[in-house]
């Protein structure tokens, strides 16, 4: 991994959706970098804004699916600000260097066309000969370890298992040799044996192609398995960012700590799990102070009035919490 080269640089990303109850702030002032060749994981509970952030980067939030939305900030990728590109220019970027795997691969594959043809179409954009393109499709099906690739190329999406579809999607992305792959919950629909195969594949491709991966998930097991760095999001804001060992061994933000403590790790006899009482705040309300305050056991007075900034507390470890930023040693449990 190359710390100095940045594959993606997100600055002050802000996303608001128009809802019947007013504007909802799904993502607030989010800034982070993804280095070349790294796997950067974004975790957080359902509805905290992970998919919205990824869709904004891909240019997939538009007037049709989100009328009245507002997007602010900058997204730097290959020396361009993606948020300022026209739809046509964005299409070009998506077709070449930026790829996304969606949570539900059936939505992204067309049920009317055979799997092989859909990958072929993605390649033919590159103006290579037809025979050459088909040869490349067969190669890609092999590369994503689809058993019996000739037969799989002729299958329709609904004839493939979840894991196979996900691999066809990955094959389609690879056809374009992306610099950055955004993977939104790439394995939640899959059981563990197939999930392990898909993760193995992502790792192999990262190594072979020097691709960067932005991995979105709420599964800490997958993060433990393949992430290099991890960002934790809560109610639209980044609350913590560190390398994977920093997050697992020394989480600083109370939300991260409580999330890790609620994972089942032992047996029934080891006692009950920790839980986080309360709910995500209403995204249409303007909240002064820290957004996690109502659910936080460590809160102090200033949390009610001042929103904590994301500050670096040790090299490479950023936290947005008034308490964690001041306490140096062990935190209260």
């Amino acid at each position, binding site marked *: 991994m190359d710390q100095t080269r940045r594959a993606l640089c997100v600055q002050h990303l802000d996303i608001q959706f128009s809802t019947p109850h007013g504007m909802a702030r799904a993502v607030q002032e989010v800034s982070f970098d993804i280095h070349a060749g790294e796997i950067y994981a974004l975790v957080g*509970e*359902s509805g905290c804004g992970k998919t919205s952030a990824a869709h904004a980067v891909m240019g997939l939030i538009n007037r049709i699916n989100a009328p009245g939305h507002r997007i602010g900030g900058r997204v730097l990728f290959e020396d361009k600000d993606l948020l300022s590109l026209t739809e046509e220019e964005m299409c070009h970027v998506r077709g070449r260097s930026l790829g996304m795997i969606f949570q539900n691969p059936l939505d992204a594959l067309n049920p009317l066309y055979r799997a092989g043809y859909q990958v072929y179409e993605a390649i033919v954009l590159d103006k290579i000969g037809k025979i050459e393109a088909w040869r490349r499709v067969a190669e890609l099906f092999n590369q994503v370890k689809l*058993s019996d690739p000739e037969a799989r190329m002729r299958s329709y999406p609904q004839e493939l*298992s*979840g*894991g*196979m579809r996900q691999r066809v999607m990955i094959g389609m992305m690879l056809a374009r040799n992306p610099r950055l792959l955004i993977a939104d919950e790439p394995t939640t629909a*899959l*059981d*563990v*044996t*197939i*999930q*392990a*195969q898909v*993760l*193995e594949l992502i790792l192999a491709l990262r190594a072979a192609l020097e691709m960067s991966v932005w991995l979105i998930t*709420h*599964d*800490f*097991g*997958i*993060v*433990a*398995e393949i*992430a290099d760095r991890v960002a934790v999001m809560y109610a639209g804001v980044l609350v913590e960012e560190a390398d*994977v*060992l920093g997050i*697992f061994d020394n989480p600083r933000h109370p939300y991260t700590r*409580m*999330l890790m403590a*609620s*994972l*089942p*790790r*032992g*047996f*029934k006899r*080891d006692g*009950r*799990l*920790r*839980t*986080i009482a309360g*709910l995500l705040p209403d995204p249409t309300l303007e909240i002064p102070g820290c957004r996690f305050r109502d659910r936080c056991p460590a809160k102090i007075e200033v949390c009610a009035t001042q929103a904590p900034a994301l500050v670096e507390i040790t090299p490479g470890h950023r936290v947005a919490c008034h308490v964690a930023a001041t306490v140096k040693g062990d935190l209260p449990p």
Partner: protein
Amino acid sequence: MNPLVEVSHLEKHFEIRSGLWRTVSSHVRAVDDVSFAIAAGETLGLVGESGSGKSTVARLLLRLITATGGSVRLEGREVTTARPAEMKALRRKMGIVFQDPAASMNPRAKIKWSLRRPLVTNGFEHARIDDQILAMLAKVNLGPELLNRYPHQLSGGQQQRISVARALLLRPRLLVLDEPTSALDISVQAQVLNILLDLQEAFGLTYLFISHDLNVVRYVSDRVAIMYLGKLMEIGPVEAVLQAPRHPYTQGLAASSPPMSPHQRGRQRVLLAEQPPSLIDLPTGCRLHPRCPFRQTICEETRPELRELAPGHWAACHLAENLPAPQPRDT
């Protein structure tokens, strides 16, 4: 052991019809000669990959579908052949929570209606129904204000707790939980798991808990059963089966399961590389043999039976005694 549920040689073959006359062309052997028992007050975890027959077992236990063979007994009484009157009494002792809580609730009815209806149709005393509902809501940590909402106005975790409450209101002896937390994120999952354990302690409930998350199954179960392509591969105490599995399939599952910490990276991840074969055209001998790294000729020819390898720990593998010891896993 004093079994609440006894399942023996349970079998469900679905017919596949094709052609002009819709004649039966083949069978899907979704559940094939499965036997196990669950003691009163115990949780049996049921694990297996997608399509291995877990939900079919669940539906057979409650007789939501009819078995093509074998028997299910609840407190010694046969479920598969019970007459309607007896079945009604038996069914009251069994509850089920489905994977997708929203799909099992009427979207156009308020929560209140969905909770009340099963009590009314089961002849509970009208005057006490509302009190019982409020008490049960408190047990699953929900307030009475939810009663006047519609299902889509609840979060996933709230919906799942409502379906647990609804199943428990009928005071079942056995509760079947089919992937009850796989749609939830981890903080809500922790709430639901805690509630299930609290209620088990309070009422001596018996659970069949289906999931493919091994960490969740380890946490809730007393014993675990592993299914593959319609057959039981291994069954025994949770520590034995998940920490020191004796069947290559269970070893493969344990190896594929994501680690709890990045310090455990670098172990062998994929033991079972190929896709599972189809249930219509099953392999001869041991069903795992085409994917098994240890297979021998006997595995292709002879079907292994479950054998007791240690007290209460059974596995169906010819080679169980001679397998290399799996890498131990920390929890």
